[in-house]
């Protein structure tokens, strides 16, 4: 019950005003991210764990633990992925980078954690999700035949913007 007394004629409209403010607070991207967080907690893809507490506190930044898949070059390794979302999500792609002490050594992963993966920029679609991005990254790692950094790693890492979405990527290698 509300503690403030209101004129009885006002009661109907005050409760609907309360409802509408709740809808406004929870806007498009927040509602979708909340749904994604719930489904990622309930049914995570194999080897993928979301830091639900951190994501719940700040929906715009998620940390995801990723295990190297069994039978691949990355078996037994653990990686951390950071997802940052803008209020334009899912119409704008998330900013996804590897962070932490172990950045996978892979021809499409720079030593600063930036990932060259077309769905993260020009091939992004709002039908993609955190889960499908994680699956793409797991499969990108799993198909790797030789652990090595991209050929232009040292130059790129010295000159790039902090935000990998500002990089004009050339996607030329579909083999790994």
């Amino acid at each position: 019950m509300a503690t403030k007394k209101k004129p009885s004629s006002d009661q109907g409209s005050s409760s609907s005003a309360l409802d509408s403010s709740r809808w406004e607070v929870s806007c498009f991207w927040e509602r979708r991210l909340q749904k994604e967080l719930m489904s990622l907690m309930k049914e995570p893809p194999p080897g993928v764990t979301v830091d639900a507490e951190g994501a719940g506190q700040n929906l715009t930044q998620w940390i995801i633990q990723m295990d190297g898949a069994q039978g691949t070059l990355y078996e037994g390794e653990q990686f951390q992925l950071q997802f940052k979302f803008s209020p334009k999500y899912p119409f704008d792609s998330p900013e996804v980078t590897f962070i932490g002490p172990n950045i996978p050594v892979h021809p499409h992963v720079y030593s600063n954690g930036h990932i060259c993966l077309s769905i993260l920029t020009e091939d992004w679609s709002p039908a993609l999700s955190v889960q499908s991005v994680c699956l793409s990254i797991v499969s990108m790692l799993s198909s790797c035949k030789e652990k090595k950094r991209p050929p232009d790693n040292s130059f790129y890492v010295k000159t790039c913007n902090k935000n990998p979405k500002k990089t004009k990527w050339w996607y030329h290698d579909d083999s790994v």
Partner: protein
Amino acid sequence: MKVTIKSWTGVATWRWVANDDNCGICRMAFDGCCPDCKLPGDDCPLVWGQCSHCFHIHCIMKWLNSQQVNHQCPMCRQDWKFKE
């Protein structure tokens, strides 16, 4: 026996006939509305593309308006054309 109906109340349900339960863009149920709307139904209708994928009209319009060059279906990447 003779029965006299004194009063009656009609009840109806409705649902969108779509090939999926949820909108692939906002992930809300098709029988609900997009996150920007409050009432499902005619105020937040579904639209179909020629590729047969369907979305809340508000969701697909947001996506198409955010794209400068290509207007593609979020699900299959075919050129988006509204089904007549």
